[in-house]
């Protein structure tokens, strides 16, 4: 059948409608390919989609993890509206997004610009900046905990340079805890963002810079009118990564302060965890998870939609 159709096509200049194919139905997908699609889909459905749907359902219940969940409608969300700790956590999360996200993007871009040119030894600096990414954040946090201890490296350093009056229990003071926790998170993220920007910068056509030079553009103008527009696609990736990483920032905060002292470094993620697994209010914890999901999804989707529209 297939041979006949091919022959027919070869002899006639205008291809006839592929009747033979239609008669045989659409081209059969080989079972192996089908399996490659369906098996992961099934796994994803069982391990991700179904639990996620369950999470949405649990957000509407009161559940202590032991008894059967009790349906309470939107009570968890109503409670959230009057929950001071939730408000603190939400504000801290926004602060985290701005400080951690903003600084890691800025510093990541700055280091990428600094280290983009192939000079002697630049590889060493790139590797050094990227190194923190390799370590587990929990291990990183333990090191920083030692640095922040009342008699830790930071306080000793301050003492030795004559700034002993600034000595501080960095993680135990509600005024400094959140900022103290951001530093190790930044320390790690900058290297990651740098690598993304380095890849973007490598992709820019050098001819553009030459053309800019010919037109008499200075370094700032070249950066403003060539580099930045060319990095637009990388920016979309960096922004998505930063928003997701900010909203799921958990490990470093949990290892260093557990959201304390008295909720001063509480993020939505740590509040969700402690509510669900320490206070065993899994319904309320799930409601918090839903809020985090909606925030992450909302920010990223709206940005991506805009980015694609501009690209068109």
């Amino acid at each position, binding site marked *: 059948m297939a041979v006949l159709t091919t022959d027919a096509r070869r002899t006639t200049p205008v291809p006839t409608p592929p009747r033979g194919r239609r008669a045989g139905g659409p081209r059969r997908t080989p079972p192996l390919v089908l399996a490659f699609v369906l098996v992961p889909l099934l796994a994803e459905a069982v*391990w*991700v989609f*179904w*639990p*996620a*749907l*369950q*999470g949405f*359902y*649990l957000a509407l219940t*009161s*559940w*202590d*993890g*032991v*008894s*059967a*969940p009790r349906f309470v409608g939107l009570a968890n969300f109503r409670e959230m509206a009057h929950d*001071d700790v939730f408000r603190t956590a939400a504000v801290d999360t926004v602060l985290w997004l701005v400080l951690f996200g903003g600084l890691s993007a800025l510093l990541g871009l700055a280091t990428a610009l600094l280290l983009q040119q192939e000079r002697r030894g630049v590889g060493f600096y790139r590797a050094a900046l990227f190194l923190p990414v390799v370590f*587990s*954040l*929990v291990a990183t946090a333990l090191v920083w*905990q030692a640095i922040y*201890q*009342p*008699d830790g490296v930071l306080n000793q350093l301050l003492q030795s340079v004559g700034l002993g009056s600034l000595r501080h*229990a960095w*993680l*135990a*003071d*509600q005024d400094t805890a959140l900022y103290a926790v951001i530093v190790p998170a930044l320390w790690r993220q900058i290297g990651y963002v740098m690598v993304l920007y380095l890849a973007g910068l490598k992709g820019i056509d050098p001819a553009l810079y030459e053309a800019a030079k010919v037109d008499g553009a200075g370094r700032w103008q070249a950066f403003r009118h060539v580099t930045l527009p060319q990095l637009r696609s990388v920016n979309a990736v960096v922004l998505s990564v930063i928003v997701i990483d900010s*909203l*799921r920032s*958990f*490990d470093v905060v*949990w*290892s260093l302060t*557990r959201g*304390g*002292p*008295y*909720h001063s470094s509480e993020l939505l*993620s740590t509040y*969700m*965890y*402690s509510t*669900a*697994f*320490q*206070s*065993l*209010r*899994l319904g309320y*914890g*799930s409601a918090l*998870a839903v809020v*985090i*999901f909606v925030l*992450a999804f909302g920010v990223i989707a709206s940005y991506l939609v805009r980015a694609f529209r501009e690209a068109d």
Partner: protein
Amino acid sequence: MNHSQTSRRRFLAGAGAAGTAALLSGCVTSTSSSKTSSKGAVSLQSNLSAPQAKAAMQDLVAAYKKKGSVDLNTVAAETFRTQLPTYLTSANPPDVYTWYPGSVADAYARKNLLLGLDEVWDSPDLKRYSKALHTLCTSSSGKKVFVPTTYYWWGMFYRKSNFAKWGVTPPTDWDGFLDLCDKLKSKGVAPIGLGAGGNTAWVASAWFDYLDIRINGAQYHRELLAGKHRFDDPEVHKVFDRWKEVLPYFDPSGTAVAFQDATTALLNGRSGMMLIGTFFADAAPKDALDDIDFFRFPVIDPKIPLAEEAPTDGYFASARSGHRDQVFDLLRFLAGAEAQEIYLKGSSGTALPCHPDAKDTGTPLVIKGRKHVAEAAEVTQFFNRDSSDALQPTADTALTKFIAKPKEINSILTDWQRDAQKIWGA
């Protein structure tokens, strides 16, 4: 392996999986609640993951293996605590668990998740256990649900050599205690170490527990933790009024370092004394152990019956265990004097056995500790054990905030009551 890279997706997956497990187990209970299969070894889920305690558990299991089969599964303490509800509600749960008696065990018993152990308590060993232990291990429905094996005590620990060097002696009452604090402060030492920073904010609860049982008595304390009184009641305010008197003597880094660092400061002589349980000795160097002593938390109101914190440890079993008879056999073994001696020999040895015939390690510290608990009219467990693990974070927040901002006590107690109500109402 990194367990802590928790993302939203993994959380949802986890929560959902737990939910599915609960639903599945719900199905199991409604259809068949009596599994009769008795094949395979009994699984023993242990949270004793500190090196010495883990080794001691392995010795214990090795000893039992001469008569029966058991599989020991040691899980990190924090993971164990958060997973316990999932274990107990799953369709095919581990059989026996290390955990705590009293209010914590009763909460599970009331949900029919624990195996009734009356048959085990009929054994000659357990019949001889103290009356207090009988009561502690009985659920509110009157069933025995727990087998206790060891207990330890809390007290004001100090180094004998340091006290001698500073020329001070242990006090007996509150005024003497304040004098001692003054003297230590004048020597340039932080009088009271705490260790409620890092991941051990719960240590601060010991101060709340002790002040409350000294001022309002153990009975009131237990009722308060059960939600029968309010945290913003005048009685609770009295606790914090007393605490304010000693707050200036606390080590300023008390809420910045974990208890392990605070005990190091104690052993190094940077702080004078610490309210802590004997478990801290696990990390103390062996040569310092002989130099460690303790005194009773000072009496504040002599009219209040003397109570001490002496948490009991032991085992309970899942109601869905498929190895009922083997579980009973294992628990009878664990309740015996021989098993408890094996455990004490293998661990740091500062705990006390529950069996009246079992020998403790016999050090002067342990002998004094045994007498200390025996003299008490009442024994409390600890904040989370007398209430619930879920209530502990509310205390952590309230107490660390009080230590930092004692003047805000009114709003702190109002917030504490509000947070606690959410837990009790859940």
